[in-house]
């Protein structure tokens, strides 16, 4: 069965410092991996995805993520955090050969960036 784990409920960083939000996954076959962000009282917003190719993918708002097949991880990163990055972040996976594309989400990680 497919699953996603986000081991940290909350990540705290100071503005200007690099940030990492962790995600590990379990799926048979090739994974399609996604990161979404959810601001209070707003819908989920797509940040970036990994399908194939370069293990480092770049997305919106300066975020990037690194796919590591051996560690089955897809950690979200940003070189310099902004206070406005504070939000709830979700990692999601689907099976690369899935004929539905249904996403399995992690529990979410709250990112708090302090001035």
């Amino acid at each position, binding site marked *: 069965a497919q699953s*996603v784990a986000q081991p940290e409920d909350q990540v705290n960083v100071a503005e200007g410092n690099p940030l990492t939000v962790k995600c590990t996954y379990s799926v048979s076959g090739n994974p*399609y991996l*996604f990161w*979404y962000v959810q601001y209070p009282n*707003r*819908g*989920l*917003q*797509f940040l970036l*995805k990994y*399908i194939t190719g370069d293990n480092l993918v770049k997305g919106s708002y300066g975020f990037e993520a690194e796919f590591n097949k051996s560690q089955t991880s897809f950690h979200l990163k940003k070189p310099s955090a902004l206070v406005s990055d504070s939000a709830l972040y*979700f990692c*999601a996976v*689907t099976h*690369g050969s*899935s*004929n*539905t*594309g*249904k*996403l*399995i*989400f*992690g*529990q*979410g990680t709250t990112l708090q960036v302090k001035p």
Partner: protein
Amino acid sequence: GAGVSQTPSNKVTEKGKYVELRCDPISGHTALYWYRQSLGQGPEFLIYFQGTGAADDSGLPNDRFFAVRPEGSVSTLKIQRTERGDSAVYLCASSFGPGWEQYFGPGTRLTVT
């Protein structure tokens, strides 16, 4: 362009009542998904439409839940005999197809009293 829209944004209903939640996807997106998000949890898949047909309804919790997409665009999620445990935010998403990124609507917050 317009994103995914959902109506109503909030719905309060009494236990045992019937409710309908509507989703209007992004124009041109053939794939449409319904998810349910409980407080403190990630979204959970309910059902997937490709065009007019429900290609995967494996996430529907029981037969009180049903969804339609008669013309391959707007979709309605229907819940009969609502229970307090149905209270959650119901999210709709659309995409060009399986494997493409899904774009989510703002959700409908359902409260069953």
